[in-house]
């Protein structure tokens, strides 16, 4: 980039490299270690996914993606993401709004609660829903009496996915909104805007990039979740198998091309997410800086 501003940073760079005490060979060695590590643990697996997927040619690749059960798994994954991401978007904005803009008792507790899904193993999150909605569970008898199927059906998969992706949007927005403070909203209100107008025309434009970033991460995880979904899915072929579950099934059936073809779709999704994320960071780095905690 031929940005003239870069120049003004150059002295800063130099002063920093002067402050680094490690000798040149040490720095080079550290760089090589990092690159080798990334190559072996990130790049190589990614290459293998695509190599295996195309091992029997392009025809076999597309044929395995055209399989009815595979198509149904792709559809279910999209459906689950389409249901859980918007719900988490609404939840994330409301939670971040409440935490960042207001003072109330139990705020710290609420913040911890939002982070809970990050610290709980996904398998446990799935089991919680089994204990809650399963036939032997707390609500099992009532649900059965009313003919509602949650566990081992699409609603259970959506719930489990929502649980594990709960924190993504809120976690992105809370620091951003806290940093921005209430000034803009107060100005809007004093000029006669309604609460909703203040949110729609002032708050939302302020947080849009952070929000988009959170939604991207949330979506990536929603489509890739394995553990929690595996527990509540019931593994019914063509009905309750999401893409990650279907990858495992195909692999266990010695269908390596099919398994890696589906995996390549998931990897492709991750790559798209990564590119979008990088683009966002490049363009709106300053606004996102506040959210770069993780």
């Amino acid at each position: 980039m031929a940005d003239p501003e870069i120049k003004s940073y150059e002295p800063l760079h130099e002063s920093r490299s002067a402050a680094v005490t490690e000798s040149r060979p040490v720095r080079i060695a550290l760089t090589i270690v990092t690159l080798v590590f990334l190559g072996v643990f990130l790049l190589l697996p990614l290459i293998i996914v695509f190599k295996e997927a195309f091992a029997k040619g392009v025809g076999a690749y597309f044929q395995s993606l055209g399989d009815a059960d595979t198509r149904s798994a792709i559809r279910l994954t999209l459906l689950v993401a389409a249901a859980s991401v918007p719900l988490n978007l609404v939840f994330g904005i409301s939670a971040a709004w409440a935490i960042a803009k207001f003072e109330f008792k139990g705020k710290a507790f609420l913040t911890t609660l939002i982070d809970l899904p990050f610290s709980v193993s996904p398998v446990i999150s799935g089991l919680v829903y089994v204990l809650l909605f399963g036939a032997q569970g707390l609500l099992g008898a009532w649900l059965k009496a009313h003919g509602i199927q949650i566990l081992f059906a699409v609603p259970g998969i959506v719930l489990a996915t929502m649980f594990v992706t709960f924190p993504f949007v809120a976690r992105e927005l809370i620091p951003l909104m806290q940093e921005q403070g209430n000034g803009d909203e107060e100005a809007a209100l004093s000029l006669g805007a309604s609460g909703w107008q203040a949110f729609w025309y002032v708050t939302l434009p302020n947080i849009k990039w952070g929000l988009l970033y959170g939604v991207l991460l949330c979506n990536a995880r929603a489509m890739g979740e394995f553990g929690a979904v595996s527990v509540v899915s019931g593994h019914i072929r063509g009905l309750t198998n999401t893409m990650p579950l279907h990858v495992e099934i195909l692999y266990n059936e010695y269908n390596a091309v099919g398994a890696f073809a589906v995996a390549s779709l998931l990897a492709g999704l991750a790559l798209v997410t990564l590119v979008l994320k990088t683009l966002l960071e490049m363009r709106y780095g300053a606004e996102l800086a506040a959210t770069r905690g993780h």
Partner: protein
Amino acid sequence: MTNPHFRKLLGALVATSVQFGTLGFAFADTTILNVSYDPTRELYKAYDEAFAAHWKAETGETVTIQQSHGGSGAQARAVIDGLDADVVTLALEGDINAIVSKSQKINPDWRKKFENNSAPYTSTIIFLVRKGNPKGIKDWGDLVKDGVQVITPNPKTSGGARWNYLAAWAYANAHDGNDEAKTKEFVSKLYANAPVLDSGARGSTVTFAQKGLGDVLIGWENDAYLALDEFGADNFDIVYPPTSILAEPPVAVVDANVDAKGTRKVAEAYLSWLYSKEGQTIIAKNHYRPAKPELVPAEDLAKLPQIKLVTIDDPQFGGWKKAQPYHFGDGGIFDQIYKPAQ
């Protein structure tokens, strides 16, 4: 709320979810769910297709059979927790009994419902070796020799692995004249020859066939043939030891579920047709041992040689209720003999 963008967004969301909704759920006339264990995937794929055609011809009704596969114990647990199975076709009697005792969804006398104690097929444990059998493995005794690497899964997590273990035990028990100390030593030596214990039978097959580890794979008869089909018959040989163990995977109708759904008639027909000429032939073609071999053409039986098979109810084991805690429980014999290779 009057913002046009917001409305458009909402409209688009509703439209997408409706679209996905209609795409996702297209039901046929009748649908039944068969909850099964891992190695039966290929068997039921073939059988379901044949049964649907048979049912259509006989009654004019269209039936769709859905399949769910997983570890046998985990599948039983899912049915207990509400997985809406019409029939269960699991690996062990104990897993169906767990559904009976924990959920009362299956009548306790389920074993009497179909012929042969509700086991329409049986299977056994055999060896898969590298082409030409370079280590000359012919019997269980060859597995404990120095320099032989044995691939078998972990009996703590895998049902199939327990059968492998018990088959080895039965051989040693007969060989050593019922001397438990010697039998223990034999099994201990066998597991000392195992460089890795995968968590499931399919994992072990992949370790042996795809990753190329080990000299011999102990595994299900049908899995061994499947590996031949998948990874090339010119890479491996199947070896039948003179003795092995008889596994009788049972089937049952989940009474409470079929009565609630009104699918009892088709669910019962689905399982009883397993005993028909067509069903038994599909079973044999998929390398399971048919309960009624007299119905099956001789050429399909030829691949399943008769060897001496010991059952789990043999006095040396005393049935699953006794064998499970004795051999595989915490502090049981397997815990005593197995030390992970360092």
